[in-house]
């Protein structure tokens, strides 16, 4: 009898020990995964992110814009520092006397983070920078006349800037050194004929005023030395290849006026691009595309259609690598007001999996980066209470990212 009792007790004790493996607190989990929405309780406050970078302390700097006042023409500059747990550290409402209309990418160079902005009076492009602790923002004008900055990349220790010259009605691609000296610059007409110019310029100016569509301006350089920009040329929204010397582009992927074009351009090396395109409200994903030749039209590119995306959706593309497997993450806005992440095999271009961020309040994509821990950080705009634009950050762990691209 006693032996049976002991057996029962040991069984029960074992059961309790096994079952009682309690949940251990682990700060690493709080770094690997988090969601944060940065709220300001002012009724008329309005913030939107543009780009983000990870800082050496594991936190993040977010470059954003803010509403200045009811009558201000351009968005003000907003900088936000977030710690590695996604908690608020510091913010700067950069005064408009320093600059307005912030432009990404946010570029890490030496110990500072660079971005472009615009002088509110002269509309000249300025190079602005801030340190990792968000101690001070400095801005200096480029050494020349480049107005309406639209997109920037940092290649070979120089800035590649796409801007708009509203006097010459040209999209301008320029190479600048970190001090703002212009190394090379070339402008391309946005349209022909007076009426077309007016219409095309309307699209451009409304973009800067944020009263109209936000165009997916992009600029970069390929391995063969050619530069490219995604912007207005010849009154269509086109992908233009240039050596920044010749008057004529080396090649052009024509869009269709403002109705068709490329909504995202990511050069993924060698002879390959990852694209997304829009056409009359529809959206198409092209994860693996050779460098275009022979002046094609983007409407000939085909691609995977995604009806769940909003019309002419903004799309961001990020190549990621997890455990030696490479993939492309497409991020965009869905009709259900979520941020959709679509994972594609970089080599084959085949769809792997998808994930949706956000619920209840609307969420819109701004930027995504792969973090040093192998995870993914995504920033976007959410509308608290369905109306107040605020910056949100999602952090997805390496484990979860691997799960998405190894399905």
């Amino acid at each position: 009898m006693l032996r049976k009792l002991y057996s029962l007790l040991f069984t029960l004790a074992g059961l309790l020990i096994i079952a009682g493996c309690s949940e251990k607190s682990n700060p690493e989990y709080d770094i690997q995964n988090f969601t944060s929405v940065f709220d300001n309780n002012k009724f008329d406050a309005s913030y939107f992110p543009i780009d983000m970078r990870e800082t050496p302390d594991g936190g993040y700097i977010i470059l954003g814009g803010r509403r200045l006042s009811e009558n201000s023409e351009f968005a003000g500059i907003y900088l936000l520092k977030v710690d590695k747990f996604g908690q608020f550290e510091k913010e700067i409402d950069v005064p408009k006397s320093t600059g307005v209309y912030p432009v990404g990418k946010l570029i890490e160079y030496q110990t500072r983070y660079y971005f472009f902005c615009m002088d509110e009076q002269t509309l000249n492009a300025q190079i602005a920078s801030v340190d990792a602790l968000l101690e001070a923002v400095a801005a200096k004008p480029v050494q020349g006349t480049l107005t309406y900055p639209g997109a920037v990349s940092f290649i070979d220790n120089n800035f590649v800037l796409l801007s708009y010259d509203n006097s010459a009605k040209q999209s301008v691609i320029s190479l600048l050194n970190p001090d703002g000296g212009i190394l090379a610059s070339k402008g391309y007409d946005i349209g022909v004929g007076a009426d077309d110019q007016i219409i095309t310029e309307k699209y451009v100016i409304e973009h800067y005023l944020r009263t109209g569509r936000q165009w997916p301006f992009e600029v970069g350089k390929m391995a063969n030395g050619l530069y490219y920009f995604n912007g207005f040329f010849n009154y269509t929204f086109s992908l233009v290849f240039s050596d920044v010397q010749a008057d004529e582009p080396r090649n052009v992927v024509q869009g269709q006026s403002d109705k068709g074009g490329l909504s995202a351009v990511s050069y993924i090396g060698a002879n390959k691009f990852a694209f997304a395109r829009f056409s009359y409200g529809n959206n198409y994903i092209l994860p693996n595309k050779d460098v275009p030749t022979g002046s094609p039209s983007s409407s000939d590119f085909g691609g995977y259609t995604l009806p769940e995306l909003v019309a002419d959706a903004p799309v961001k593309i990020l190549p990621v690598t997890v455990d030696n497997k490479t993939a492309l993450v497409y991020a965009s806005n869905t009709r259900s007001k979520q941020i959709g992440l679509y994972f594609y095999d970089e080599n084959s271009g085949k769809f792997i999996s998808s994930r949706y961020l956000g619920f209840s309040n609307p969420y819109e994509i701004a930027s995504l980066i792969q973090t040093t821990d192998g995870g993914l950080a995504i920033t976007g705009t959410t509308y608290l209470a369905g109306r107040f634009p605020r910056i949100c950050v999602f952090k997805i762990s390496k484990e979860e990212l691997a799960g998405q691209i190894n399905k």
Partner: protein
Amino acid sequence: MKRLYFVLLFFLIVATATAQEKKRSGSERKRKNNAAYNKKNKEDDKFLQKQWWLGFKAGPNLSKVSVDKTYSIVVPTNYEASTIGKNYESYNLMGSQATLEVSFYFKGFTISFQPTYQRSRFEYSNQFTWSDTVATHNVELKYNQEQKLSYAVLPLLVKYDFLTGRLRPYVQIGVYSALLLDATKIVTVSGVDQASGGANEFQNESVIVGAKDLFAKSHWGLLGGVGLNYNLGNNVRLNFDVAYKHGMSNISSTKNRFSSDRLSGVGDALDDLKLDNISVTLGCLFPLRFLSSGFKTLDKK
């Protein structure tokens, strides 16, 4: 509905036990004199010196949680985080539980294993306000979050009967482990919007989300309580039990705290929590030794 089943089952057991008692002839009882009664008591005592008991009990419970570390999706940039902190309600939502009890009694002490299906509920709320110098620029939102948790609770208890006789009060202490079976969250958003020119009060449709991944697969705690056993006469005991479970480990999943995109979207992240629970149960216990047919025990010759 489940609670109704438990109550019905409980009454069925009580009715069965009572019926067995009634079957015993009333006249036989009348014939008992004091001496016979003493003799019977001795036999009862002998019988009760060592006994296995099997029983079933059920009843309601109330829960409260204590916060170890708080988490939030919404991070204030220009106001204190405490103004949007979560306010937890304690012991305000009734849950239920059903227990199978297996006990071994020996000279006043009982070792008892009581696997339990426990349904616990608790809630919290937090409030957000956006305002401005303009009086009508004011929006208030209140998020109410209810949690429904189902656990398989495995308690191991030691009881001590400090009286013998027909009415046997006892005290009990023990340890338990709880395995998560299911979890649901219900989020209700209500508020007042004065920006549209008047006070527009609204309450959105509740969002019900399966939340099992957000909670720890298991937790453990300590248990204490008091109770009463009432011998119905044929050693079938009616049991009334009050127990307090004190959670010792976190019931939230630290790894999956932000894994629900839906809940993150509505601004909710679970805090590190410990769950305390008070339960009141009624039930019946049956002796397993000396049993013959019809619930007659060999001590009832």
